[in-house]
Every structure is written in structure tokens, then in C-alpha cells.
């Protein structure tokens, strides 16, 4: 692998995490398809790199959220069981399914991500008291106002079922699954957005870990792809959170939507053998 390709992989990770952080999504959704359809990296190696980058991102993000007491660890563990089982299934699909089928699925998930970005489902107000059969009530200190926000997650069984979708996509595609988890926790389970983001950031690390272990055991992890991507993702996420407040986020979101639509179409086209970006 040439030094230029290694640099291009690092730059892709940087760009994905930079733009992703600004609009509130993980870098893998952009990085994995670019690596596969633009830079010609083997899709399975790109997915494995994506999963390890998600673990790294989760470690870094969670350390801050855990310190702030934002992560609802019991909710995370309750949801994690179905999510991790689904991630195992997803990772096994990556190993045994034809690459072209994976490309088509990835392309369709990219298009659905764009639809979710455009529609932006409205979050629902959290519930401070009520039945709590699983004992998942939690609280955190509000960062922007004095006082503590107390909440009781609702519709936990639905949350458990729906979160397995996040696990499946994460296991299959090497992305975090936060784009699926956060709206489920916020809109269906009525967890406050901050707590949903923090809990999801913690959960995606464990979800990606299980698929990363399966990919590692199958020899899919390519250090020449993974390590430059990790470096790019870390620097990009830092840049995104620093610059994010100073740039027009709507413009970045529009650009990302267009890029994801093109990448999604390219993945589907490549999967069916009718169109490729390379």
C-alpha cells in the first residue's frame, strides 16, 4: 500500500469525523463507503476499520460523559443485550455474505440515513415519574441550567426490540449505530436528548467491540487501513467539535446529504455491477 493511499485513508477519516461531529453523526457512515467505492479498499477491511474506529471514538466520548454522570449505565446494559446479539449476527453476515450484497445493503442504509437527516424526528419530552418496572430511572446535573434532570425511560420493551436494529446495522456495516439508537431512546423511550446521546456513545463501543473481535478473528483487520483511519477520525472529531460552532452547520449538513446520496447510489450501483465511482 502506497504512502499516498495511507494519507488518503487518514484524510477520509478526518473528513468523515470532522463533518460528522458538526452534524451529530459518527464518521464511519461517510468513511467506510468512501474507502470502499472511492479509494478501492476492500469493503470488509473498511468495515473492520470502521468498527475499531467506533470503539476508539466511544472510549474517548464516553470518558467525558461518564465523568459528567450523563450515561444511564443500567439502561445501557438492558438495551445492550439485544444490541450485542444483533451485532454478532451482523458481523457474521459480513464474513459469510457476498461483498456485492453488502454494498447494496450499505447503500440502502446510507439513503435511509439521509432520509432521517432530512426528516429529523422530533424528540419528546422526558417523563419524570411513572411506572418503572425495570428500575431504569436516572438523573443528571443539567450543564446549561441549575438543577438536576430526573427521567424514567418509557416503552423499554419496544426500545430493546428496536435497538437490535442498531446492533444489526453496526455489526454489518462497521458504523456505530448511534444514528438509529439516539432517535429510538429520545423519541420512543423519552430519554432526554443529552442522556440519549451519552448512553448511545457508551453503548456503541460495546456493540462495535463484538463485531471488531469477530473481524479480528477472521483476519479482516488491515492495520494499513485501520490505523490511519483511527488517526484521521481522532483529529477530525477534535476539529469538528472546535470548528463546529463557527461554521454554518446547515451548509455542512446539506453537503453531507448530497455526498451520502451519491455514495449510497454508488454503493448500490457497484453492488449490482452497473456503476462505480472508481
Amino acid at each position, binding site marked *: 500500500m502506497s504512502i499516498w493511499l495511507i494519507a488518503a485513508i487518514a484524510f477520509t477519516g478526518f473528513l468523515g469525523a470532522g463533518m460528522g461531529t458538526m452534524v451529530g453523526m459518527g464518521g464511519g457512515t461517510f468513511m467506510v463507503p468512501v474507502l470502499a467505492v472511492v479509494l478501492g479498499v476492500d469493503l470488509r477491511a473498511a468495515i473492520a476499520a470502521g468498527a475499531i474506529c467506533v470503539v476508539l471514538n466511544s472510549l474517548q466520548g464516553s470518558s467525558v460523559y461518564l465523568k459528567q454522570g450523563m450515561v444511564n*449505565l443500567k439502561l445501557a446494559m438492558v438495551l445492550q443485550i439485544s444490541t450485542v446479539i444483533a451485532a454478532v449476527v451482523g458481523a457474521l453476515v459480513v464474513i459469510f455474505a457476498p461483498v456485492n450484497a453488502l454494498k447494496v445493503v450499505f447503500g440502502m442504509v446510507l439513503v435511509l440515513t439521509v432520509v432521517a437527516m432530512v426528516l429529523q424526528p422530533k424528540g419528546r419530552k422526558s417523563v419524570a415519574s411513572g411506572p418503572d418496572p425495570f428500575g431504569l430511572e436516572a438523573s443528571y446535573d443539567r450543564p446549561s441550567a441549575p438543577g438536576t434532570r430526573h427521567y424514567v425511560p418509557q416503552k423499554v420493551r419496544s426500545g430493546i426490540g428496536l435497538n437490535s436494529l442498531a446492533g444489526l446495522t453496526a455489526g454489518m456495516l462497521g458504523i456505530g449505530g448511534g444514528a438509529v439508537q439516539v432517535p429510538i431512546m429520545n423519541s420512543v423511550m423519552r430519554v432526554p436528548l443529552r442522556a440519549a446521546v451519552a448512553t448511545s456513545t457508551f453503548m456503541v463501543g460495546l456493540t462495535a467491540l*463484538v463485531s471488531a473481535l469477530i473481524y479480528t478473528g477472521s483476519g479482516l483487520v488491515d*492495520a494499513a487501513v485501520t*490505523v490511519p483511519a483511527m488517526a484521521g477520525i481522532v483529529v477530525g472529531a477534535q476539529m469538528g467539535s472546535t470548528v463546529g460552532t463557527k461554521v454554518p452547520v446547515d451548509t455542512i449538513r446539506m453537503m453531507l446529504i448530497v455526498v451520502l446520496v451519491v455514495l449510497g447510489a454508488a454503493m448500490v450501483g457497484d453492488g449490482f455491477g452497473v456503476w462505480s465511482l472508481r
Partner: protein
Amino acid sequence: MDDDIKSVESTSDHSPASYNAGVVGWVYRGISMVGMLMALGGVAVEIYQSGEVRRGLWPVHELGPALMAGEPSAYTTLGIMVLLAGPMLALISMFFSGIRRRSWAAVVLSGLVFLIIVLAIPIRTWIEGGL
């Protein structure tokens, strides 16, 4: 005061303390730094020495001798493994913290998640062997 904003003492089974949140946070921060530096350092030395990067990771049984021999790619592999160990250590920490505090929900849940993750590799091998 708004009914969803009230002071609550975190003393029950679901409190972050039951899951050792502070320790997990520190474990995460340390692991991500060490793993990242090892992986990056290994690749940087490899590129400096040969202009090439070893594609695959070292198998676990060959990793020790490769590290002793000062093979840079072995340090890259170790860095990635350290990163992957982070969430596992967090689960172990949550499990033992639960036992110490007699928070059985934390023990059962973290233990179950740990078990599923540990079983993932044998399941893959078993399915691969069956096909």
C-alpha cells in the same frame, strides 16, 4: 420548580456508582490514549524503517516473540488489542463493582453482556467450521 427538575440523591441500584462510572471513565481515557499511541507509533516506525505497513495483525500466539524482537507492527497489533480491551475492562469493572455493592442487577446485566461478547468468537469459529 418544574416537576422533571428535582434534586435526587443517587443511592439506588441504578446509580452510576453501582456501575463504577468514575472508574470506567478513567479506564476508557487511559486505554484510548495508550492504545492509540502504540498503534500510531508502530505504523510510524514501520513507515520510517521500510516505507511499508504490514497489512494483517499478528496472531496472538506469535505476538509475544514479535514484541520481544522489537517488531514495530507487533506494537501496532498490541495497540489495537489494548483499544479492544477497553470496553471489556469496563464490563469487568462494572461486574465487580456490582458484587461489592450487592447491586445484583448490575452484576447480572454486565455479566450477560460480557458472556455474549466472549462467546462471539467461538460462535464464529463454530459456524465457519460447519460451513
